[in-house]
């Protein structure tokens, strides 16, 4: 078929749509609901085109290409129409950042998404690096909303295993619904409700689990926005690289595409996108690999304790001890999840170096459980996993554990050697049909953990043995003549556990996988031995009296803290800890009542610690609230004081406004938010100050722009300002400082770096002001904003990003209301 698209003559194949034909011929037509794995849907209305002889604007994704068709894809009318349609879509999607005039500066200052609970703008969206809506909005020149946005105020759904769902970001392209049908053969999720209430959900409000979700993650993978997100992977951002390897959680040996960032595996997907993998393949690998309690250095028993020692020393020591146990008194236990190469070395070592016949190789059962026992008379054992009972150790003269995670057995062992696993190693394994499948190294093992063949080879060498001079797994494969190992792609059928997660394995090398991968605890297994992990409950002294979400992601919390309330002064802060193990986080005092003994905090949910605080409710207690801390703000008669406030700062300025007013100043308050629905405390502040100005980045209420835009306008108009005080995020304060500088207006900013003790001892809150090192906790929080080193502040605030990301997935108890976590106690 020959047709003309934009004046270009192109050939279409039978059955092709106009869109497919155009894309094949490098003619780009914007599209959103279309996805390579799915059939056309026609919902997003962005691929509209003009076709001679067809009325109106047909969607190119659904219109079959026909001979002699004349198509136009980029007329002025189409451009306008698409832009207008996208603008409508953006009314229900946090879109202020897309129209922000400081977008580039913001991207430079904070390229990584900030980890908020609710996403109300691109810079707090985990999907921002790969967002299709952002890309389209640039392509289509989206710059304006026809009416103020209509944020849905839907709660972020975080109680399902593995997946977060923020339907406030959803544009209803229906990809998730369709891919779910495609993979599962039925709709676990579907469109629910009518009109503007339409949303993605499960029938009858069931949980995903009860609706029959198999957690294949396909919906997350196809979502063009940040609406559906992999709870664990989302804050890592877009992977830097993707490596393909084989999953060894079970012997179906699915091929996985592993996304890596900073040397870590952060995400996993099926290589073969048309055939889903099971929940372990999709969600368990990164969390299992990145566990903070992974064994990462060799340890040796010294008296009652295991002590770290360097590899060389460890090997030498083990070699020396092992010599005494040559013969059948030595046993090596492994299971078949170790690679062929590793097992070859294990066996060779046992037979040739240790002269023992006790090489024991366990075949895991259907649940992945590998249980073995040591032959009678064993005096020394090398265990490559959690395979034997603790009791067996008592009989031994030497126990060596080479493993990825600590276990009760490793804690009693004489030597513990950290092993690399899964995507950290190269090698070959056999799948259930006996075909060879390759393991490719995708990331570095933690710390000094080493591949198993390496450990044994070096041990053999240390014992003076020959024939163990391998420097790579490949060298061993060559010797074993292993070739043609190929990833299992182009599969026809999904593994059984992909269609029924109850059939998944629960154990890997003797470890319960759900102990390392939190979301799995909520998924029932086939024959559970019921147990729920005990919830740690900390009872503190600082009761929460009230807690409200006063704007999306902004919470007002009133806490009983009489001693703080008695002494608080404007500009001071407290350090709060939710439980004994929490981070110590500074929060600005937004109000206090000495008589009632209460303080008010406005808390922005951003990261792990504030999340913990947000999870509490009225009646719960915090373990510590320390304060008031910091130098109170100098309250004096300046003349005209302008307070610029954003996000939590809108609450933070309240005591300052009051005090400045009392001191006789003319007080101007300028608040900023991305959109109208993010403003709060309007009436309160209006009643306190002389002039109140609201700004929004999308212009949906008040002045369009940031607070500084309203201030700069006043300055340009010749208004006198004696002091500008900025309270908000570092970006907002930095921008305010930069733009008041030319006017020579005294500008203060309230800094909020990471703090520990809050008393000037630890130095964690170090900031550089005018080339001098200051401690924000005792010298601040207020500093001359024109002298602050903002880049340093930003970098120091991000110092523990990686740790935070890992812990974020573990903050809250997942899922309420449905039965049966796997919790299997049988091994412990």
């Amino acid at each position: 078929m020959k047709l003309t698209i934009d004046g270009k003559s192109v050939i279409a194949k039978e059955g092709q749509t106009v869109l497919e034909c155009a894309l094949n011929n490098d003619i780009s037509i914007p599209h959103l609901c279309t996805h390579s794995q799915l059939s056309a849907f026609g919902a997003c209305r962005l691929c509209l085109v003009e076709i001679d002889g067809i009325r109106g604007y047909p969607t190119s994704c659904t219109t079959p290409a026909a001979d002699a068709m004349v198509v136009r894809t980029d007329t002025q009318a189409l451009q306008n129409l698409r832009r207008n349609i996208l603008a409508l879509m953006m009314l229900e999607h946090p879109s202020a950042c897309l129209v922000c005039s400081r977008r580039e500066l913001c991207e430079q200052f904070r390229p990584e998404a900030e980890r908020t609970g609710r996403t109300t703008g691109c810079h707090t969206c985990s999907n921002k690096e790969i967002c299709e809506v952002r890309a389209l909005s640039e392509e289509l020149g989206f710059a304006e909303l026809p009416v103020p946005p209509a944020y849905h105020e839907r709660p972020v759904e975080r109680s399902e295993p593995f997946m977060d769902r923020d339907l406030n970001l959803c544009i209803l392209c229906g990809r998730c619904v369709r891919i779910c049908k495609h993979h599962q053969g039925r709709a676990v999720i579907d469109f629910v409700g009518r009109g503007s209430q339409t949303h993605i959900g499960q029938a009858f409000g069931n949980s995903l689990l009860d609706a029959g979700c198999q957690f294949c993650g396909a919906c997350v993978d196809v979502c063009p926005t940040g609406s559906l997100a992999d709870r664990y992977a989302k804050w890592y951002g877009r992977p830097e690289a993707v490596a393909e390897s084989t999953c060894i959680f079970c012997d179906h040996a699915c091929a996985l595409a592993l996304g890596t960032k900073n040397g870590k595996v952060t995400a996993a997907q099926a290589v073969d996108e048309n055939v889903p993998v099971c929940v372990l393949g999709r969600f368990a690998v990164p969390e299992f690999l990145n566990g903070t309690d992974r064994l990462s250095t060799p340890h040796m028993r010294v008296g009652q304790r295991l002590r770290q020692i360097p590899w060389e020393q460890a090997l030498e020591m083990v070699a020396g001890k092992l010599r005494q146990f040559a013969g059948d008194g030595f046993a090596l236990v492994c299971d078949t999840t170790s690679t062929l190469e590793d097992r070859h070395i294990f066996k060779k070592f046992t037979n040739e170096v240790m002269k023992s016949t006790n090489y024991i190789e366990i075949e895991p059962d259907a649940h992945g459980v590998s249980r073995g026992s040591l032959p009678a008379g064993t005096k020394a054992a090398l265990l490559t996993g959690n395979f034997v009972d603790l009791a067996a150790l008592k009989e031994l003269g030497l126990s060596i554990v080479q493993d990825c995670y600590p276990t009760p057995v490793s804690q009693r062992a004489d030597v513990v050697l950290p092993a690399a696993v899964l995507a950290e190693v190269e090698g070959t394994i056999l799948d259930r049909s006996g075909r060879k499948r390759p393991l490719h190294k995708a990331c570095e093992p933690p710390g000094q953990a080493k591949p198993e063949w390496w450990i044994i080879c070096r041990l053999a060498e240390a014992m003076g043995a020959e024939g163990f001079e391998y420097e790579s797994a490949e060298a061993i494969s060559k010797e074993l003549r292993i070739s043609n190992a190929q990833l299992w792609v182009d599969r026809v059928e999904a593994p059984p556990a992909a269609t029924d997660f109850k059939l998944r394995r629960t154990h890997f090398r003797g470890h319960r996988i759900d102990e390392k991968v939190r979301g799995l605890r909520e998924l029932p297994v086939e024959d559970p031995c019921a147990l729920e992990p005990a919830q740690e409950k900390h009872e503190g002294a600082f009761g929460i009296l009230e807690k409200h979400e006063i704007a999306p992601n902004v919470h007002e919390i009133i806490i009983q803290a009489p001693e703080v309330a008695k002494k608080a002064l404007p500009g001071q802060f407290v350090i709060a800890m939710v439980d004994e193990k929490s981070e110590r986080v500074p929060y600005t005092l937004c109000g206090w009542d000495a008589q009632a003994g209460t303080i008010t905090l406005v808390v922005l949910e951003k990261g792990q610690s504030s999340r913990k605080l947000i999870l509490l409710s009225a009646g719960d207690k915090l373990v510590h609230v320390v304060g008031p801390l910091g130098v109170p703000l100098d309250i004096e008669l300046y003349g005209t004081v302008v307070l610029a406030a954003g996000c939590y700062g809108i609450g933070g300025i309240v005591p300052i406004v009051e005090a400045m007013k009392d001191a006789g100043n003319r007080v101007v308050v300028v608040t900023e938010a991305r959109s109208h629905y993010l403003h709060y405390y309007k009436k309160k502040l209006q009643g306190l100050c002389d002039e109140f100005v609201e700004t929004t980045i999308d212009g949906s209420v008040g002045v369009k722009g940031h607070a500084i835009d309203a201030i700069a306008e006043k300055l340009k108009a010749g208004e006198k300002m004696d002091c500008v005080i900025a309270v908000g995020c570092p970006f907002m304060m930095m921008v305010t400082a930069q733009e008041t500088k030319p006017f020579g207006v005294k500008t203060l900013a309230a800094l909020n770096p990471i703090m520990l003790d809050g008393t000037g001892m630890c130095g964690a809150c170090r900031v550089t002001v005018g080339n001098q090192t200051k401690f924000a906790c005792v010298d601040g929080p207020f500093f001359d904003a024109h002298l602050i080193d903002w880049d340093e502040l930003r970098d120091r605030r991000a110092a523990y990003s990686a740790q935070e990301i890992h812990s974020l997935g573990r903050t809250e108890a997942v899922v309420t209301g449905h039965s049966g976590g796997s919790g299997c106690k049988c091994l412990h």
Partner: protein
Amino acid sequence: MTSLQQVCTEARVQWDKLQDSEVPVLFVGAATCGRAAGATEVLEALRERIERDELNVLVIEVGCLGPCSFEPLVIVHKNGSPRICYGNVGPDEVVRILESHVFGDDPCARWALGKMTPGKLDGIDDFNTHPMMHRQVRNILRNCGLIDPENVHHYLARDGYRGFLKALELGPDKTLEEIKASRLRGRGGAGFPAWRKWQFCRDAPGPTKYLICNADEGDPGAFMNRSLIEGDPHAVLEGMLIAAFTLGASQGYIYCRAEYPLALQRLDVAIGQMRALGLLGRDIQGSGFCFDLSVKKGAGAFVCGEETALIASIEGRRGMPQPRPPFPAVSGLLGKPTVIQNVETLGNLPLILRNGAQSYSQYGSESSKGTKTFALAGKIKRTGLVEVPLGIKLKDIICEIGGGVPDGKALKAVQTGGPSGGCIPAEKMDLPVDYEALTQAGSIMGSGGMIVLDEDTCMVDVAKYFLSFTQAESCGKCAPCRVGTRAMLSILERIAAGEGQMADLEKLESVAQTIRDGSLCGLGQTAPNPVLTTLRYFRNEYEEHIRKGQCPAFVCSRMISYHIDRDRCSGCGACARVCPVEAISGQKKKPHAIDQETCIRCGMCLSTCPARYAAVFRRSGELTRVEPRKEVKRKSD
């Protein structure tokens, strides 16, 4: 098995007997509309009296005759007297009619609407000359209100299924020719020529074809389809047989909303009767034609009237439209060629076949042939279901048949076509009612709803009403419709709240354009119509809202304030007692006052203030509206 012919002959004999029945017969209009007006109570009272006095009287429940404002309707047959149709018959009246007319000499002329059969009776004119009836041409509705819809013999006696037998005689090709010659256009709204759709379906490859009757009537204020099914279900079913036979469809579905329980019951009964008569199943009437029917209940989503959404709903999926192509006539239900026709379109088919295309197309205008039913509602004297030839002037329907606007108010506009249609202003009442003319005027024919608006109607409020309907009924699939209607609604709400700006009018038009051009299905593409037509014809009213902050119709509550005229107020305190927010204060027998800060503009004071004082008046911007005082004679005077 007795042949259909035999049954027909018997039916005719029975019917004739009924017409000349020695025993008095009371036909009670007991369709949904009649029941809502109290027909059930009428029936109860009637039966109770008959039982008590052991009277020899036959009572037959019939469908709706049309004049809803006169419901409950009772037609009385008494041997030796012309048949009389009575209106607004309550339980008391029916007993009186029984006593005075049926078993007495007083024909109760005061309740009579007219004579239905020839003969002289003092004070009672022919029913056909009744102002509501005389411009009507009742072809599709010819049986409604006259036959027992659950008695197939009544239908058969009145030439029922003759059209189908004619089709069998002609064969599918010639039947299609006949339909083509009649120039019947789909009555669902868009007016697509029926024969062309059928032709597409016939031409589509594959032996399996489906026919669907769209009985999902969802427009607010429309009840044409419901009345037809309730009053004459076999007319629709015969139409389905004819269509299915012509298409070669083997299976038919009737998609009817579950909110129509009586219609569903009538369909069930009628389908059972068809089966018993050999009009469904294999080898129907020995013709080799096989066809069966089933009813699918819809959950009442407006969008399910859209063909592709309707198909999805029948298939058990969510009612969400799909882009075309493929058209349902090529790939519809279960991927097979499917024709979907509205109830009324199907109801026309027996007429065309029985009387011939010529006879059918004698009615109507050049482009729009035949008659069409309309549901008259709103600010009109005589509400009801009417049938008129297409091409009739709008004012003939509104002013003559409907009797114009009640209470001496002025006609402002007529809303046609439901949420997809528009408002036609009073000065355009000369407009001929046909598909093209209505479209040109910015509205559409739609399925036949006509809502009459008087001077007390605010056009911004009307636009808001219809938009909030489509907004809520959007399936949510595409952004132009889902979000666009929401955006337009928010602008309208702003205007109605007195917070509008002149730029909002352009915004409304621009968003409307995006919705029209960008929406996936007809629901979205037509959703802006009520706003666009009101903007086109009543722009000044929008501007008054915006510029002057006033609602000339005194409807938009945010723009109205309520006040008490000190000179008129007697201090009776009636208003203060009903005020829900205690905004009214005043001493007994002294003029009261309304605290504007507290007042929530509910209007309770206005409606409570006795008409003889009419002391409560309204202000909106520069406008003031004072209610006329009405002297009411008190008993003590």
